[in-house]
């Protein structure tokens, strides 16, 4: 039997050795003649050994927190992206990423004082980096006199405004608000943004309105004032956004189409 074993190239074939009788082979002889090839990683026969080994490690860390106390409330854990995970860990499959995310979401529910050092390291390493969005938009500032500029548009009308801290006077094209907008509804529209921020008596507005018609100019003025108020105090943005003062109404006159008399009006239908 030993001769057959030794003639095998490389290592011992276990097929020949599956006999319940004991091996009477000297240990030194075996050591000298039968070195064997053994994989290092326990996940050698898988598609992603690094990923599987890492997942096993992460799940073992989680399993150690059986008796940890959970937080009362907590924000959901935001993990790094799959690409970033691959870079950090060296894994390649989505499966290992999903196992990591599931385990970290569990770990993030526990109170920090009950987390082991390994758990804390994993949570910081694979947490999404919160970056503020870098915007290239130019933000308007108050000028040297404390004036905030705003421009508004509605249909064919446009309005420009300078809003400055004052007592509540509103001038449109040099005229008083009541004079320029005789209709109460138009006046209400124009000062609505100031009402929303409770600043009717705190700001003065100087408006220049052009184009369009009465209502169009009124809406344009309202939008201009709203935009200027945001420049005056960026804290007003939320409330103005919520009350839709910063919404630029995109509705315009619909074009005339061929085969029709106006945008929608059709010529009289004739039977024949």
């Amino acid at each position, binding site marked *: 039997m030993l001769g057959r074993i030794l003639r095998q190239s490389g290592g*011992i074939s276990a097929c020949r050795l*599956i006999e319940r009788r004991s091996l009477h082979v000297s240990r030194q002889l075996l050591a000298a003649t039968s070195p064997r090839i053994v994989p290092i990683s326990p996940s050698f026969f898988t598609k992603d050994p690094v990923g599987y080994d890492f997942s096993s490690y992460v799940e073992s860390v989680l399993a150690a927190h059986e008796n940890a106390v959970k937080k009362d409330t907590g924000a959901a854990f935001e993990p790094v992206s799959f690409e970033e995970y691959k870079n950090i860990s060296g894994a390649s499959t989505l499966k290992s990423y999903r196992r990591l995310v599931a385990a970290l979401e569990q770990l993030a529910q526990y109170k920090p004082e009950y987390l082991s050092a390994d758990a804390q390291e994993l949570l910081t390493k694979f947490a999404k980096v919160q970056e503020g969005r870098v915007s290239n938009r130019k933000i308007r500032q108050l000028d040297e006199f404390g004036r905030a500029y705003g421009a508004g548009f509605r249909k064919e009308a446009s309005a420009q405004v300078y809003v400055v801290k004052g007592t509540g006077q509103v001038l449109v094209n040099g005229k008083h608000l009541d004079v320029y907008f005789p209709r109460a509804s138009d006046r209400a529209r124009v000062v609505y943004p100031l009402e929303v921020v409770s600043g009717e008596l705190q700001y003065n507005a100087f408006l220049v309105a052009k184009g369009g018609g009465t209502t169009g100019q009124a809406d344009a003025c309202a939008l201009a004032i709203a935009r200027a108020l945001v420049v005056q105090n960026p804290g007003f943005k939320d409330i103005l956004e919520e009350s839709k003062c910063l919404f630029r109404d995109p509705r315009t006159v619909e074009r005339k189409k061929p085969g029709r008399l106006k945008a929608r009006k059709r010529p009289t239908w004739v039977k024949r």
Partner: protein
Amino acid sequence: SSRDEPFTEYELNARTNRFLELFGGMGSSIPERFSYKSQNTDPISPGQITISHLLAAGAHLGNNTEIFKKSMQPFIRGERAGLYIIDLEKTLTHLRRAAGVVRDVAQAGGLIVFVNSDELTRPHVAKAASLSRSPVISDRWIPGTLTNPRVFEGMQNVVKLSMSDNVLSTLSSTEHPAKPDVVIFFNTINNKTALRECASMNVPTIGIVDTDCEPGLVSYPIPANDDSVRAIQLIAGALGKAAQEGVEQRLS
């Protein structure tokens, strides 16, 4: 304190002590209680497993009588509640035989591979395999693992070990693919490709066969319930322990 007021801390402590004095010695003490949790860290060896253990783990519950492989007939004890009941005496003998195979292979320095098919049994099988530092296939047997070993993303390293587990050299798996010497399956139905590959490459296999499985597909079948996590934990632990014993005998 008066009868209306709640107990002070001192009184509570005194009452607790008195209670323990009077009643502490009462009740039953259960020595050597079997715990499934400690099964992973210190499993029962195959020589110590009894039919009671297998019964408690639900290893005797076969599948529905309607999905039945006739070649499993020798292992069936009877029928109950629409299921075939597996004869646990046969389970035990076959388990001990398979454990002996695993022990001998480990003692001779062979490579034992555990193949797990279910997510629930993954930690148990992994722990059993780690006792002898054996590889585990956790999810899916990649077709061609034996017949067409490929280079996966990232080169893998293997080591050349002596019989006393001294590292002789570190090699690349592309030139020296590691070949298993016995493969252990815990579900034969989901691993048909793997079983076929092992058979074609002359690798002996051990597997848990349920009443709807073909026992002839594996070299050493163990008739048992493959749906019960407890049963698989028990059997994986026994085989892992056998491998550990084999390794210890080799190194001593």
